[in-house]
C-alpha cells in the first residue's frame, strides 16, 4: 500500500506536542523519544499547549477542550507539512464532545427544558471537530466523522486510505481523538473499566490487577499517496477485526495480515502493543509474546496515554516518530476491551 505519513501532531498526557524535558542521552534507535511523565491516580489528562500560538483567540474562547485539542493538533500537523489546505478531513471519535453534551444535558434537566442556550448543543455534535477544522481552513473538500467505539480511528484511516487510492484526494488530514471528563470518568469507573485505587502509570503493568487507567488525546496525520524524503513513515497496511472468538483467531488474523502484505516477521523491529494493565484483558498480549511474537521486542503504550477508544492514534503517532528516528518496520496490535482489535504496519520511507 503506497500511503505515506507526511506529518503528524499529537496532544497527549505526555510531552508529545511541546518539546518537554529533553532526555539526558540521545534515545537509541527505536527507543523511547520522550521522558515519560508520571501520574498517580486512575486518569491521565492531556498536557495542553498554549493555544493562542496556534489558534485565533476569538475562536478559542468558544471551544470546549476536545475541540481545542483537535483543532490545535490538526493545525500543527498541517504546519509541519507546510500545507495550507488538505483535500479532505476525516476524524474518528468514539465519544465525541462529551463536555458539551453533559453541559446541555445538565441544563435541560436542571432548567426543566425551559430557557436553554443552544451553544453547548451546537458544539455537542460528533462532527464538530472536523467541521471546525474545515471552517478554520475554509476547506470545502470531503469531510467525514466516524464514531464507532474502538474502531473510530481505524475507520477514519480506512476512509482516508480509500480516498487516496481512488485518486479523490492527494492528501488527507485524518485524526483520532477522545476526551475524558469528570462525568465520563465517574461512569466508566462504575462500569469497572478503571482501577479502584490510585496507581502510577509507570507501574501500570505490575501485578495481576483488574482495570486500567483512563486516558485521552488528539493525534492527527497528513496522509499522502506520493512519498517525499521528509515523510515520517510509509503506512503499509491497516486492518481491524471484531470480537475474535479465541486467542487462535487473533493469531490467525495477525498471521494472515502479515502474509497478505508479504511481511517476513524477521523484518519487524518492534511491536507496539495495546496492553493496558488489566491482567485479564492483557492475556492475549502475553499469549502472543510467548507465541508468534516470541523473540521480538515488544513495547506497550497505554502507560503513556491511558486507555481510550481512539488510543491507536497515539500508537500510530509513536510508531511514526520512531520510524523517523531510525526504526525500519513497526507492527502495532491493539484491542479495545477485547471487542475491537486492530493492526497497523509501518515502515521507513524509500524515496527514489
Amino acid at each position, binding site marked *: 500500500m503506497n500511503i505515506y505519513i507526511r506529518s503528524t501532531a499529537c496532544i497527549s498526557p505526555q510531552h508529545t506536542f511541546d518539546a518537554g524535558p529533553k532526555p539526558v542521552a540521545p534515545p537509541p534507535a527505536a527507543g523511547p523519544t520522550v521522558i515519560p511523565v508520571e501520574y498517580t491516580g486512575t486518569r491521565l489528562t492531556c498536557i495542553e499547549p498554549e493555544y493562542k500560538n496556534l489558534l485565533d483567540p476569538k475562536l478559542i474562547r468558544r471551544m470546549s477542550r476536545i475541540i481545542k485539542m483537535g483543532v490545535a493538533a490538526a493545525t500543527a500537523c498541517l504546519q509541519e507539512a507546510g500545507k495550507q489546505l488538505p483535500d479532505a478531513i476525516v476524524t474518528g471519535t468514539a465519544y465525541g464532545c462529551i463536555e458539551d453534551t453533559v453541559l446541555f444535558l445538565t441544563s435541560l434537566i436542571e432548567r426543566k427544558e425551559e430557557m436553554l442556550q443552544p451553544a453547548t448543543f451546537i458544539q455537542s455534535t460528533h462532527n*464538530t471537530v472536523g*467541521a471546525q477544522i474545515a471552517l478554520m*481552513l475554509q476547506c*470545502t473538500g*470531503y469531510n467525514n466523522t466516524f464514531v*464507532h467505539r474502538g474502531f473510530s480511528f481505524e475507520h477514519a484511516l*480506512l476512509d482516508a486510505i480509500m480516498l487516496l487510492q481512488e485518486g479523490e484526494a492527494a492528501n488527507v488530514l485524518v485524526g483520532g481523538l477522545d476526551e475524558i471528563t469528570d462525568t465520563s470518568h465517574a461512569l466508566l469507573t462504575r462500569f469497572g473499566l478503571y482501577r479502584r485505587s490510585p496507581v502510577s502509570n509507570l507501574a501500570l503493568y505490575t501485578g495481576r490487577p483488574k482495570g486500567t487507567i483512563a486516558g485521552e488525546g488528539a493525534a492527527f496525520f497528513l496522509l499522502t499517496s506520493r512519498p517525499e524524503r521528509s515523510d515520517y513513515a510509509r503506512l503499509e497496511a491497516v486492518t481491524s477485526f471484531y*470480537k475474535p472468538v479465541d486467542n487462535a483467531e487473533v493469531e490467525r488474523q495477525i498471521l494472515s495480515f502479515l502474509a497478505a502484505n508479504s511481511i517476513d516477521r524477521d523484518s519487524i523491529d518492534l511491536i507496539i502493543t495495546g496492553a493496558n494493565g488489566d491482567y485479564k484483558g492483557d492475556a492475549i498480549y502475553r499469549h502472543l509474546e510467548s507465541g508468534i511474537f516470541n523473540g521480538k521486542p515488544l513495547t506497550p503504550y497505554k502507560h503513556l496515554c491511558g486507555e481510550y477508544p481512539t488510543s491507536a492514534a497515539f500508537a500510530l503517532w509513536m510508531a511514526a516518530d520512531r520510524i523517523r528516528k531510525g526504526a525500519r518496520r513497526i507492527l502495532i496490535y491493539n484491542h479495545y476491551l*477485547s471487542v475491537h482489535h486492530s493492526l497497523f504496519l509501518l515502515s521507513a520511507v524509500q524515496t527514489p
Partner: protein
Amino acid sequence: MKVISPVAIAGAGLISSIGRNSTECLSALEMGHAGIGEISWLDTAHRQKIPVAEVKYSNAQLGEMAGCGGAGAGGAGAGGAGAGGGDAGVVSRTALLSLIAAKEALDSAAIPGWAGLRTGFVSANTVGGMDRTENFFAGFLSDAQSGRLREVNQHECGYVTEWVADQLGIRHFQTTISTACSSSANAIGFAARLIRNGILDVAVAGGTDALTKFTLNGFNALMILDPEFCKPFDNDRKGLNLGEGAGYLVLVSEKVAATLPSAPLCMLSGYANANAAYHQTASSPDGRGSWLAMTTAIDRSGLSPADIDYINLHGTGTQNNDLAEGTAIRRLFDPAYPKMSSTKSFTGHTLGASGGIEAVFSVLAVQHGIVYPNLRFRTPMTELPFIPETRFLKDQPIRHVLSNSFGFGGNCSSLVFSKAQR
C-alpha cells in the same frame, strides 16, 4: 471530474412516523398523510406544545416488531457489560428502529447466503442511546452512584450500530458515521465505496435516530422548530418539525448482483460529500456547500443536471436551510427545473436517519416512477423562480433522482439514484 461506476441496490427498508415499512410509508405518501402530530411517547415538558413526527409505537411494540421482544441486548456494552438479558424496554429506541428497518432491507434483498459473504453494516446516527442516557442522567446528577448502568451503556453512537449488527448476525464489518443531518447519506456513500474498493460484497447502509429530549430541546433552543406543521420551501415557512425513524439500503457488488434472481431496485450512480466551511450551524446564503455536493454528485454519475428527473430535497423548512438549498438549485438547474419535493413535510426531520429514509424514498421513486408531494405548500418563496411539486404523481419517466442531505458543521452530501439497466 472522474465518473464512478454505479453500485447496485438490492434491497430497501424503513420505518418512520408514516409507517413501519416501505409499503405503509408509500401508501401514506400517496394518500398525503403526514406523520406529524402531538407528542405521545417522548416524556418531555414540550408535550402538547411542539408537534413532532413520532413513530407511532411504544418501545415494547417496536421490540416485538424487531423480533427481540424477550431477547434483549447483550454483549456490546462498555466494559463488557451488555444491556444484557433484559427486555426490549431497556434497548435504546434508536437501536430498535434501526433493527426493524435494516431487517426489512435485508429481507427484501433476499441475497442467497449473504452471511457467508463479506457483509458489512454501515449505519449512521446522531443521538446514539441518548433516549436512555437522558433518563439515567436526572438521577445521576443528584447521586453519581444512582441509576442502572444498562440505561447508560448504550450512550455511544457506535453501541447502537454494534447491537443491531449483532442481532442481524453481521460480524465481518460494521461502522458508524455521524455528520449531523447528512450522516446517513454519508453512510450510504461510504458503503458504496467499500464495495467499489473490493472491501465488501454486501453492505446494509443507512441510518437511524430516535426522538430525544436532548435534540428536541437543542433545536428548540436554536429557535428553528415550527410550532405548527412545517412548510418546506414555502415563503411563510417557520422552521422544522423533528421526526424519528430509520432507513437502509442493501448495496451489492456486481458479482453478487449477478447472482440475484431479479434485477436490482436501482443503482447508486453518484455520491458527493462537501463542506460549506461557512458556519457551525447556518447554511451560507449562496448555498455553496449544497451546490458543491449536488454538482459533484451529478458529475461523478456521468450525468448533467438536465438528466435529473426528481430532487428529494433536504427541505427542512427553516428560513435559512431552504433558501440556501433553493439558491444552489437555481444556480445548478436554471432555467429547467426537475420536479422536487421535501418528504420532511411527511416524516419531519429525522436527523441522522433522514438521508437513509429519503434514500429509500428516492429508490422507490425510480422503481415505481413516482413523485411525492410537498405538503402544505401555498406561497412561492420570493427569492426563487421555482416551486415544489404538491401532488403525488404516478407513471412518471423517472430515470435519475437526486437526494440531498445537508447538516450542522457545513456537512453537505448528495446521492444520485438511477434506473438499473438490465
